[in-house]
């Protein structure tokens, strides 16, 4: 396919696109051409600028500099509607559907079909939606409540929405990040069908196997800059990965043996009900042990229960769980994070912006928040005592900030995350729960976080780590447990763990590799 279509006028031309945010240049002079009918993969680590590029294409954000042409026409989108009119449809990574509306209403949201009287024509919408979905080879009821569908089906609804506007260009932002293997396979069939109609596809992903299966050409972005664009046949996954991270991907050498200490956390048969959901349980009989000086990785797809597991231990979820949790031998049942903090458990949350950061507080206040009593002089907070207090963790975690009273929102994602880890280190925890700590953090800061986490562990902290990136777990963790739909499906020692086996367990395929009891040392 490639080569034949490249001669025609390009579908998209970007020239010198630049977008700055406070404290970070998200896109730096990026130029790119996408040919009509090709599947053009855009690869890059988190923070490379992929999503910003896509937001500019879809009219969500305006570039600070640079030009954009679609089918030879210069455009400057003022909103998503204008992008749609230009024939561009976006399948968002975070699905942009209204949960409470039926499928058909979502497909036609903002472009409702009307009857002669000007009322919404639900019947026509449903019929057209059914036809679109049939084209995609799936049987979703157009009248079904969207929020009740599986994530993979919701994604197909998004694609149907894109088709309903007769999009000639479809942008997919990491479409398989939340899909099972079967759903991914179905998506690939859908993509093939779209390409058969001549649709141009921009495919944003960092999964090499997908990219090399699907793409005609590959563009690599790193730190907001365009690294290079190559034909797929002219390169290898290893080479592309190297461009993505900008250096050899030796990986973190967490392989060096750590000294495993006493058992600190003992979780037995942890079950968390999920009222009103088909699965019934968010967590189902999860058991494991965590030792001092050990990093235990928790693998699993989105929705497998990783966050729920950490939140339940931390006392942040519904207190309706059953089973037992022992902290240093004593049974505990936290009903509020306050109690967990007091008992020496700390949790760095997954969604930093929503659940971790206080945008209105400065860097020092963000770090000192959980340990303010240590900054009191004569019963009142003292500015100098607070600065002294936070200087330790700021140095230990390597936060790069203009000063303790700088705005925390001006820091990069990695530095914000270090602030939050520093906040918890001040509480002198025994157990550190890290929920996907490197999400949205650039590659360099990721390596620093790895070193930091490894160091904390070697200092005797017990670390429970989840990650959406398997290589991260493989590099850092001493052992890895795998969750699938709330159940613990496998436990691996670092020597026997590999991506293949973990993915099989995460998608519910693999048998249990040794129960948690088998891991209990003497």
């Amino acid at each position, binding site marked *: 396919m490639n080569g034949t279509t490249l001669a025609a006028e390009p579908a998209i031309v970007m020239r010198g696109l630049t977008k700055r945010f406070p404290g970070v240049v998200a896109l730096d002079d990026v130029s790119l051409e996408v040919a009509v009918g090709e599947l053009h993969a855009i690869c890059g680590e988190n923070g490379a600028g992929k999503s910003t590029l896509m937001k500019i294409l879809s009219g969500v954000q305006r570039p600070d500099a640079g030009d954009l042409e679609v089918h030879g026409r210069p455009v400057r989108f003022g909103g998503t509607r204008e992008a749609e009119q230009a024939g561009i449809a976006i399948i968002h990574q975070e699905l942009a559907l209204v949960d409470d509306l039926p499928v058909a209403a979502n497909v036609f949201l903002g472009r409702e079909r009307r009857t002669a009287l000007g009322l919404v024509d639900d019947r026509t919408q449903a019929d057209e939606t059914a036809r679109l979905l049939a084209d995609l080879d799936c049987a979703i009821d157009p009248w079904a409540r969207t929020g009740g569908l599986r994530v993979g089906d919701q994604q197909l609804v998004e694609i149907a929405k894109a088709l309903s506007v007769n999009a000639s260009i479809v942008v997919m932002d990491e479409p398989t990040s939340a899909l099972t293997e079967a759903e991914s396979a179905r998506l690939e069939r859908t993509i093939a069908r779209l390409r058969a109609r001549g649709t141009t596809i921009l495919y944003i992903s960092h999964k090499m196997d997908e990219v090399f299966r699907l793409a005609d050409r590959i563009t690599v972005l790193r730190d907001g800059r365009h690294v290079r664009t190559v034909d797929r046949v002219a390169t290898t996954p290893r080479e592309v990965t190297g461009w993505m991270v900008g250096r050899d991907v030796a990986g973190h050498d967490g392989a060096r043996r750590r000294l495993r200490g006493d058992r600190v956390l003992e979780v037995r048969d942890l079950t968390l009900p999920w009222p009103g959901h088909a699965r019934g349980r968010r967590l189902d009989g999860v058991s494991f042990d965590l030792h001092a000086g050990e990093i235990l990785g928790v693998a699993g797809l989105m929705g497998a229960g990783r966050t729920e597991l950490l939140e339940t231990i931390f006392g942040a979820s519904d207190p309706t769980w059953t089973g037992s949790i022992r902290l240093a031998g004593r049974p505990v049942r936290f009903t509020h994070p306050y109690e967990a903090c007091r008992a020496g458990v700390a949790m760095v949350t997954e969604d930093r912006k929503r659940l971790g950061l206080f945008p209105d*507080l*400065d860097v*020092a206040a963000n770090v000192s928040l*959980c340990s*303010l009593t240590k900054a009191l002089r004569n019963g009142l907070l003292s500015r100098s005592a*607070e600065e002294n207090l936070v200087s330790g963790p700021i140095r230990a975690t390597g936060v790069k900030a203009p000063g303790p009273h700088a705005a925390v929102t001006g820091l990069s994602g990695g530095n914000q995350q270090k602030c939050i880890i520093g906040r918890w280190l001040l509480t002198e925890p025994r157990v550190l729960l890290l929920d996907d700590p490197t999400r949205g953090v650039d590659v360099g800061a990721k390596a620093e976080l790895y070193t930091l986490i490894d160091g904390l562990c070697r200092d005797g902290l017990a670390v429970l780590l989840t990650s959406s990136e398997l290589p991260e777990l493989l590099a850092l963790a001493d052992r890895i447990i795998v969750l699938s739909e709330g159940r613990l499906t496998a436990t691996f020692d670092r020597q026997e763990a590999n991506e293949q086996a973990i993915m099989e367990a995460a998608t519910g395929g693999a048998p249990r590799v040794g129960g948690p009891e088998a891991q209990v040392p003497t």
Partner: protein
Amino acid sequence: MPSHSRGAGGAPFLRPGEWTLLAAIVAAVVFTALADSNHSYWQRPLDSLRDIARNAALLGIFALGSTVVIIAGGIDLSAGSMIALSGTVCATTMLALAPAEMAGFKPVGPAVVAAGCLASLVAGFLVGTLHAWLVTTIRLPPFIATLATLVGLRSFARALCESTTAAFTPTKSALINVADPFFKAVRDNVWVPVAVFALLAVITWLILTRTVLGRHVHALGGNEAAARLAGIRTDNVKWFAYVFGAMTAALAGLFYVGNESVAAPVNQGRGHELNAIAAAVVGGCSLSGGVGTVPGTVLGAVFLRVVIDAVSKIIKTGADVYEGLIVGIVVVVAVTLAQIGQMARGGRRLLPGALGLCAIPTLAVLGGAVVAMMASPRAGAATGIGAFVLLGLLRRWETRHTVVSAS
């Protein structure tokens, strides 16, 4: 306006927006002194000062309470009704303890006065607790919970007034006269409310900037979910905020009784909750929580009262006629000015599309009508036409500007 919370003490006392507000207060006073044809600021400066000081102090006292609630990410719509309830609780308590003296407009004695005031503050504590319970346990949105008490408490106060007067006096009444010298003294010595306001402002400022609780208030308002996950007992922080809000309103209610020598639950404090929220917003509080300062609210309250006084002096009508209108305009203008730079940078237009087109005559008619009523019909017509032309030109400019940048 991007704003960052002050850390623990030592940071600059006033932020840029607050200096602007201070300058605006001075400008309003100077303008009134020049424009007032009676020259009351020159002839009777002490009377004018006393008037503004008393009104600003009374508004400021419960505006400080609203500020704490707003920074904590909530809203308290019930302050006006709490003022009425507080006055009524105080008066009914005194009536129950000393019915003969109250009926005869005689002194009731310090013990009875103290009991009355204490009962009011306890009522404030109870109402604040009720708010916190509704918001945290029942999970009512603060707007709904305090809307319910806004409506309910005033009615409750009136019922309390009528049943108490029915029980302790010959006829039931919707108001209770308060003639004790303590309240007269509070009315006649304007430094009392001013001193109480100043003291309360200092205490509130200390709590918000120099205590763990204050930091938790900021954190709660800035990001509630994160605050909980940081181990902050957010329910307790909310309890404090709503109790503080209701108790400051109760305190203000006592001063209103003193000022008017009567507890009148039907009208006392009516609509004042919005003035308090306006003072906080003009002073830089964000209704989405987490942002706000005590100096800002103090200046906001003073600014509102100065402008209200200016209009009443210049137009020579009762201050109350235009009070609501002025508060409304001041809030809109203050918040607009605070984000106008952001609007320009973000390429946002003031008068976009069909909405912008309809906004032009709306604003022109509104401005013209206000000026016509305040000054003369001729001035109103001139203002209306002038505004129409200017806004039309602005829209034209905006439209052209956008077209140019799009090509």
